[in-house]
């Protein structure tokens, strides 16, 4: 039970840090911490075997989004 509350507190902490941080490059690692915390909390909250798939789908999806945001921030792909 403590594990769930601890993870939830870390998620909120990460969101606050991400909100305060102005630089996009340094904002993303804070969002990354939040994604870890949400994926972990999902599995502990949902008492179902498929919660693992939900957590993995959420995590991979949010990582791909962070990847896209960071790569766009870096200048994106140059097309001829």
């Amino acid at each position, binding site marked *: *039970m*403590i*594990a*769930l509350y*601890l*993870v939830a507190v*870390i998620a909120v*902490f*990460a969101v606050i*840090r991400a909100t305060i941080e102005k*630089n*996009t*490059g*340094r904002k*993303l*690692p*804070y*969002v*990354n*911490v939040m994604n*870890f*915390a949400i*994926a*972990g909390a999902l*599995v*502990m909250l949902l008492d179902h*075997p498929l*919660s*693992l*798939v939900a*957590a*993995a*789908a959420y*995590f*991979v999806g949010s*990582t*791909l989004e*962070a*990847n*896209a*945001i*960071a*790569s*766009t*921030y*870096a*200048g*994106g792909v140059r097309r001829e």
Partner: protein
Amino acid sequence: MLDEILHILVAAIIAWILFVTVDIFFKLPEAGGVSGASAIARDIEVGGGALAGGTMMGNIVCSPDASAGTLLAACGVYVAGIPGGLAAALMVFIGNRICHDPGYAGTTGAVLATFIIYGFTQIGFAATDFIAGMVIAILTIQGLSHAHASRLLARLWRIRQ
């Protein structure tokens, strides 16, 4: 209650050592896997950090690495024991391919973590201890001080080299 807190702290230390070792073994601090990872590394360096450590942090943001593998393996072991952990490893492998990551740090980390976490569940630990432990471990790298974390990772990377 005190027991659970102690277990979570021990799990955090084990998870930290595991994912940092696997990531550095797979040379995550060497180069950004995608341009976004290098951009994050540059911003961390501008903020007073070290470039190699920042590159590893950027790579962690941009693709599921060993830390993500450890987290999802802990979730998998919690849901269905060793088969659950291995299913998580497969999903991390697919996640790496989706994120254009050519490496195997995430998959390796997930498989190793599955057996380590299962071993600890046999001696009184709960898989949830490792879920919370991994979240604490990633918090210390990505969520407290980017400058200090990146310098520490860069120092470990120099030892690897």
